[in-house]
């Protein structure tokens, strides 16, 4: 009996029971559906074992959207609880669990896969490659992320969710104060998906360094690829720190070690330092690719080359270096002395300089441009003032003396949502709309898209700007309720209305996908936006080999120059193309990782050891496996190309120019 009690939820509520039933019903529905329509084989062959970067990108995209709704549900519950004073919707414990999972899900299981989706979808195409450097490792990265996310998500129906905040500060996250297995889930789920992220970083660094098309020097790489390159370098250097911190946290909780305890020499601030040495660069892992997407979109819809290409690149490099030098600004008030605070205050504010350079470059790109106000462009234009406000409040927070006033208030919450939502979420939605036709063969409806943008923007302003005021008035973050006498009521009600509008906007995106799937025309050609970089030089739908012949590049706007100046992109003969085989190993290995993670959460040592051995057996099998992939023969490539109606050298170009 005691054994089963460990799996029970410590603080069950009707909402959790309802979720359990919903999860069970959906799971049964999926299994029955797949069996009834005989889709198991299709699922296995086309998706679970795929190593194609485009399909992996689409799976990242779907997972990210799924997690957006999970994290969004948490957000709505929080805002509803705080909408009125003394509300009884949630109790304190439930509220703690919700803000913890909201933070973790949104950063690690929504924003990260969202940008990884774009890395996978765009980077190989933009550099004119046929895949990433290590296609199987790429599949493994995805599946590790996915099982990590799933492990994290089952916490609220088996054993209890983490409740120590997404930063999981010790000693609060230690066994004394977090008694359920929730924080074990946190440690292990993030560990597993973090290993996947690290491998993505290695994979894409190698891809970008070694697999660029002939003629594409570093300073001719499209801006999104540059941003992906820098973000992946940050991944490689930041994630190992998190790995170690999580190992130590796990050791404290499961093996009675004393890294972060307050007895036997442990030091709780060590966790805070490690967490933010990873956590602050993490912010830039998310924002730099978003900047990359904005650069592509703004340049396309202004009809101009990006202004200040070199300045853009150098500002990103500078931001990436500074990102590692500011972590202490997350705990100015925790007693580290005036000198340390001053140093980190200055490095923090220094980040505003290269970021400002980028903002001006985007504005100058638009200046004198012929701007087309499409949905992706609206997001990009909306981003500029909103993000600048978020940056300005960041400078306010960066002043360490003043931070004693704002620290741990809603002002901070308003600030980071003010950077992440217009910075990252807007960019992802802009990218989603922009690249949708390339990957799915139809455009999303512009009318619904623009409506979504306005709903989201107005909702965002209503939801977060009141928090600046209530924060300055002293409303602490992570407080599950407040009395009427505080006067926070009306501002919080306004936030709730804003949050509801944002929820509507996200539903509108789903409706848009459904509506456009039903109604949008399918004959959109391969370059519906009249765009500028190489990904638009592929056919739609993209053949599995991406490019029949590798492109010859001579500028950072290679496709645009091919269209306008008549550069020849594709020269030479079509030859046999080497492709990697599908593999079930990444999926199976990740499932074993899931078993290992789950067993560690509940300290079930026998299955944990067996699963770990299973992981090593998979690695050994992979080592012995001889798999040289296969070749798509030139004849077959020509036939496929012929189906698109163009085989010969110059036709690609004339097709492209005729569309302008």
């Amino acid at each position, binding site marked *: 009996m005691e054994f089963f009690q460990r799996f029970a939820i410590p603080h069950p509520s009707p909402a959790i029971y309802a979720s359990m039933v919903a999860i069970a019903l959906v799971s049964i529905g999926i299994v029955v559906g797949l069996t009834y329509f005989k889709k198991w084989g299709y699922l296995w062959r086309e998706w679970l074992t795929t190593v194609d970067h485009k399909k992996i990108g689409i799976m990242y995209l779907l997972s990210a959207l799924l997690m957006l709704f999970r994290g969004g549900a948490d957000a709505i519950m929080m805002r509803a609880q705080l909408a009125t004073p003394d509300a009884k919707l949630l109790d304190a414990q439930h509220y703690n669990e919700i803000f913890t999972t909201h933070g973790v899900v949104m950063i690690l299981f929504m924003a990260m896969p969202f940008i990884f989706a774009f890395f996978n979808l765009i980077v190989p195409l933009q550099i004119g490659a046929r895949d990433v*450097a290590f296609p199987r490792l790429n599949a493994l990265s995805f599946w590790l992320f996915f099982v990590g996310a799933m492990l994290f998500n089952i916490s609220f129906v088996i054993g209890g969710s983490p409740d120590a905040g997404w930063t999981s500060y010790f000693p609060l996250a230690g066994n004394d104060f977090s008694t359920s297995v929730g924080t074990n889930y946190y440690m292990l789920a993030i560990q597993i998906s973090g290993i996947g992220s690290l491998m993505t970083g290695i994979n894409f660094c190698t891809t970008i360094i070694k697999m660029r098309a002939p003629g594409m020097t570093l300073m001719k790489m499209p801006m999104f690829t540059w941003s992906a390159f820098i973000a992946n370098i940050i991944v490689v250097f930041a994630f190992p720190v998190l790995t170690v911190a999580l190992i130590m946290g796990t050791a404290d909780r499961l093996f009675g070690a004393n890294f972060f*305890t307050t007895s036997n020499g442990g*030091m709780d601030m060590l966790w805070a330092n490690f967490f933010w040495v990873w956590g602050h660069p993490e912010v830039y892992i998310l924002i730099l690719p978003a900047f990359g997407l904005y650069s592509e979109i703004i340049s396309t819809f202004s009809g101009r080359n990006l202004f200040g290409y070199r300045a853009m690149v150098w500002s990103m490099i500078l931001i990436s270096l500074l990102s590692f030098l500011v972590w202490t600004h997350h705990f100015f008030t925790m007693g580290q002395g005036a000198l340390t605070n001053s140093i980190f205050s200055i490095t923090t504010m220094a980040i505003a300089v290269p970021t400002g350079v980028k903002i001006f470059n985007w504005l100058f790109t638009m200046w004198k441009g012929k701007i087309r106000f499409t949905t992706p462009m609206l997001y990009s234009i909306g981003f500029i003032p909103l993000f600048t406000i978020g940056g300005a409040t960041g400078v306010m927070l960066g002043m360490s003396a003043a931070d004693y006033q704002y620290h741990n208030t809603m002002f901070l919450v308003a600030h980071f949502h003010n950077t992440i939502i217009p910075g990252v979420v807007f960019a992802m939605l802009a990218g989603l709309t922009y690249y949708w036709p390339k990957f799915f063969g139809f455009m999303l409806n512009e009318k619904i898209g623009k409506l979504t943008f306005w709903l989201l923007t107005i909702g965002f302003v209503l939801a977060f700007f009141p928090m600046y005021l209530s924060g300055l008035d002293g409303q602490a973050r992570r407080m599950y309720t407040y009395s009427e006498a505080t006067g926070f009521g009306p501002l919080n009600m306004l936030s709730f209305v804003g949050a509801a509008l944002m929820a509507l906007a996200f539903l509108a995106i789903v409706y848009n996908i459904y509506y456009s799937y039903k109604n949008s025309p399918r004959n959109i050609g391969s370059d519906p936006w009249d765009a500028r970089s190489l990904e638009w030089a592929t056919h739609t739908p993209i053949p599995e080999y991406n490019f029949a012949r590798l492109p010859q590049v001579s500028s950072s706007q290679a496709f645009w120059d091919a269209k306008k100046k008549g550069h020849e992109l594709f020269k030479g003969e079509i030859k046999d193309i080497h492709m990697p085989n599908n593999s079930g190993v990444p999926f199976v290995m990740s499932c074993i990782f899931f078993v290992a993670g789950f067993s560690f959460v509940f300290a079930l040592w026998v299955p944990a050891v067996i699963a770990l051995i299973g992981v090593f057996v998979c690695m050994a099998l992979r080592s012995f496996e001889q798999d040289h992939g296969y070749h798509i023969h030139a004849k077959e490539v020509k036939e496929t190309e012929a189906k698109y109606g163009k085989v010969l050298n110059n036709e690609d170009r004339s097709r492209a120019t005729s569309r302008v």
Partner: protein
Amino acid sequence: MKIDHAQPLEYSTDQNQLNILGFWIFLGAEIMLFATLFTAYFTLSHRTGSGPTPAEIFEITPVLIETFALLTSSFTIGLGIHAMRLGRKNAMVTFFGITLLLGLCFLGVEIFEFMTYYHEGATYQTSAFTAALMTTLGTHGAHVTLGLFWGTFIIIQVIKRGLTPQTANKAFIFSLYWHFLDVVWIFIFSFIYLKGMM
């Protein structure tokens, strides 16, 4: 698979070159991993609670044996790669075998050392210092253990399949890994043991 005969075998295909670069980047991540562990160790090494201090438990003899075994193994794997470049399969396999035996010797002494600590009352749970020490040494030791399995698999593959671009590539990457563990050990030896004994 196109093979470029102007290059050494381990660099001779495109995929081989990608693998080697990818592994160097992975080693960059490993440097961060160990740097973080060292940071934790230096932060916590004097926070011994009621447990022993570094000077009380460190002993020079086993550490010297470990250092000797591991540094020699780095030399022998270098000889192995040299033999591979000359196309001498048997010599290469022999040197790889010696490398792994030295690695095994290292690991044996390290396990013995951990048992001694345990008997002296310095367990994983004793203090922040012991936890940081054993996590740092343990992570390095786990890498060596993994390396022993990995190296064995490579020897088997070289014996079965001969020196092909694939096996040469794997052997070369393994040698990078092994040298890296050696470098990490030099830091452990200097900054954990020697500093702790002073």
